[in-house]
C-alpha cells in the first residue's frame, strides 16, 4: 500500500506542465506574424509622423503669434516717417506689446532684393514700410483697439497679425492629423481582417479539437479563449517587432542630421533628410500602437472564433 502510494506520488511529479489544448503551430503562422509586424510598423510611422507635423505646426504658430507687423503705406501729402513714428507710438502704448521698431531701409531693401534686385533707392519708389511689433508672452494683446487706433491716427497704417496664415497652417496641420488617423483606422481594419481570416483557417484546421471540446462540455468562451491566447501572443510579438522597427527608424533619423553636420556638406544633407527626432510622447504613442494592435488582434480572433463556432453548431 505504502509502496503503491510512493509510486503514484513519483508518477504525479512526472506530469509535465499542461500542453496548450490547441497547438500553437496549428493556429498562427509566420506569415500572420509578418503581416501584423508590417501593419504595426506602418501604424507606428503614421503616429510618429502625425506627432511631428503637429509639433512643428504648433512651434511655427507660437513663433508667428509672438510677432505682428504694421504696414505703413505712403499717403500723398503726408510724411511717411512721421506716420511711422505715430504708428510705433500707438503700438508701444498697446497692452501686451513688448517692443515695436521700424525696419531700417537696409532691411526693407534686403526683403525686396529677390524681386527688385540690389542697389535700390527706396526714396524713389512709393513702397510701404514695415514695423515689427514683438508681443509679450502670456498676455493677450488687444488687436482690435490697436487696429482702430492706427486707422484713426496713423495715415496708411494697417495691422497684419498673421491670423490668416496661422489659420491656414492650423487647417493644414489638422487635415494631416485627420488623414493620419483615417489611414491608421484603415491599417487597424486591415489587421483585423487578416487576423479574422487566419482565425477562420485556424478553427477549420482544428475543427476536430473544437468538436471534442464541445462534446466534453466546453463553453464557447473557453474554446475562444484557447485560440485567443495564441493570437494575443502573436499580436504582441508582431506588434513589438513592427513598433520596435519604427522606433528604431525614428531614433536613427533623429541622430543622422546631427552626425551629418560634422561632415563636409553635412548641413545640406541634414536639411534634405530633415529633423525626424521623436520626443518621449512620440515613443509612448508607438508603444500605445503596439498595445492597440495586440488588443485588436485578440478581439478580432475572439469575435471570429465565436462566429465560426455558431456556424459549426
Amino acid at each position: 500500500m505504502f509502496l503503491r502510494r510512493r509510486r503514484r506520488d513519483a508518477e504525479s511529479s512526472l506530469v509535465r506542465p499542461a500542453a496548450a489544448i490547441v497547438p500553437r503551430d496549428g493556429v498562427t503562422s509566420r506569415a500572420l506574424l509578418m503581416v501584423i509586424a508590417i501593419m504595426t510598423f506602418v501604424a507606428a510611422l503614421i503616429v510618429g509622423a502625425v506627432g511631428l507635423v503637429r509639433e512643428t505646426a504648433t512651434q511655427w504658430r507660437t513663433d508667428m503669434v509672438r510677432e505682428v507687423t504694421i504696414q505703413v503705406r505712403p499717403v500723398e501729402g503726408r510724411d511717411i516717417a512721421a506716420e511711422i513714428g505715430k504708428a510705433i507710438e500707438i503700438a508701444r502704448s498697446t497692452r501686451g506689446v513688448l517692443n515695436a521698431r521700424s525696419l531700417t531701409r537696409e532691411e526693407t531693401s534686403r526683403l525686396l532684393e529677390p524681386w527688385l534686385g540690389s542697389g535700390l533707392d527706396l526714396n524713389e519708389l512709393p513702397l510701404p514700410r514695415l514695423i515689427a511689433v514683438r508681443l509679450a508672452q502670456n498676455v493677450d494683446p488687444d488687436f482690435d483697439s490697436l487696429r482702430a487706433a492706427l486707422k484713426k491716427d496713423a495715415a496708411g497704417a494697417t495691422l497684419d497679425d498673421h491670423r490668416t496664415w496661422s489659420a491656414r497652417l492650423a487647417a493644414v496641420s489638422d487635415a494631416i492629423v485627420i488623414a493620419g488617423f483615417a489611414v491608421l483606422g484603415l491599417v487597424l481594419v486591415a489587421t483585423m481582417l487578416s487576423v479574422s481570416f487566419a482565425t477562420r483557417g485556424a478553427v477549420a484546421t482544428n475543427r476536430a479539437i473544437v468538436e471534442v471540446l464541445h462534446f466534453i462540455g466546453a463553453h464557447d468562451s473557453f474554446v475562444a479563449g484557447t485560440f485567443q491566447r495564441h493570437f494575443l501572443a502573436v499580436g504582441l510579438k508582431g506588434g513589438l517587432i513592427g513598433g520596435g522597427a519604427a522606433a528604431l527608424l525614428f531614433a536613427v533619423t533623429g541622430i543622422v542630421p546631427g552626425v551629418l553636420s560634422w561632415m563636409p556638406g553635412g548641413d545640406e544633407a541634414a536639411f534634405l533628410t530633415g529633423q525626424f527626432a521623436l520626443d518621449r510622447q512620440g515613443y509612448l504613442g508607438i508603444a500605445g500602437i503596439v498595445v492597440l494592435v495586440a488588443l485588436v488582434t485578440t478581439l478580432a480572433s475572439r469575435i471570429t472564433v465565436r462566429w465560426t463556432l455558431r456556424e459549426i453548431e
Partner: protein
Amino acid sequence: MVRFENVGLRYGIGPEVLRDVSFEIGPQSFQFLTGPSGAGKTSLLRLLFLSLRPTRGLITLFGNDVLRLGPDDIAALRRRIGIVFQDFRLLDHLTTYENVALPLRVQGRDERSYRAEVIELLHWVGLGDRLHVLPPVLSGGEKQRAAIARALISRPEFLLADEPTGNVDPPLARRLLRLFVELHRSGTAVVLATHDAALMDQHDARRLVLAEGRLHEER
C-alpha cells in the same frame, strides 16, 4: 433521465433515418443499443449527446426539452454526460494523462486538484504505465481505454459508448464490458451501442434494437 417521444430525424431533404422512436432511459440503468450497420445507432447517440436536434418529436434530457436549449445549457448538460466515440477522438498532441484530464481542465479546475484522481483512473483502466505517452503511440485497445477514462473522469450521470469494443480482441472486450458494468453498479446510467451479439450475451441487460430507423426492445 432521457425520454424520446415519436422522434424522427432526417439529414437535409433525405429520407428519415430515425422514425417514430420512443423510449425512456432511467437513472442507474444499463442498456445495449444494437442493430445492423446503417440502422441509425450513431444518429441516435448523436441525438442523445445533443450533437443533433430531432426534425420532429420530443426529446427531454434531465428534464429539459432539447429544442429549447441554448449553447450554454448544452455545454452544462454535456458535463453530466460521458461519451466514448467509436474513433476515440483523442487529441494527438496531448499525452494520455492530459487527454483524460481534459474534461476537468475545461471545467476550470486547478491541475493539482485532479492530478491524483486522473492517475488513479488511468491505473484502473490499465494505463498506469502509459501516462506520458502520446495517442499515436498507443495501441487500439489502449486508445479505447484512454477514451473511456476521459468519458468517466468527470463522474458522469449518463455514459454513452459507441462501439467501445469494436477495435479490441475478445478478452479485452470482455474486460471493457466488465468496466462498464462496474460503472453502472456505481450508479451511472449506461447506453452501450454495439453490434457484437457475443458481447451482449455476456451481460443480461435491456436491448434497444434499431432496424431501418425504427426501435423495438428485446430482453
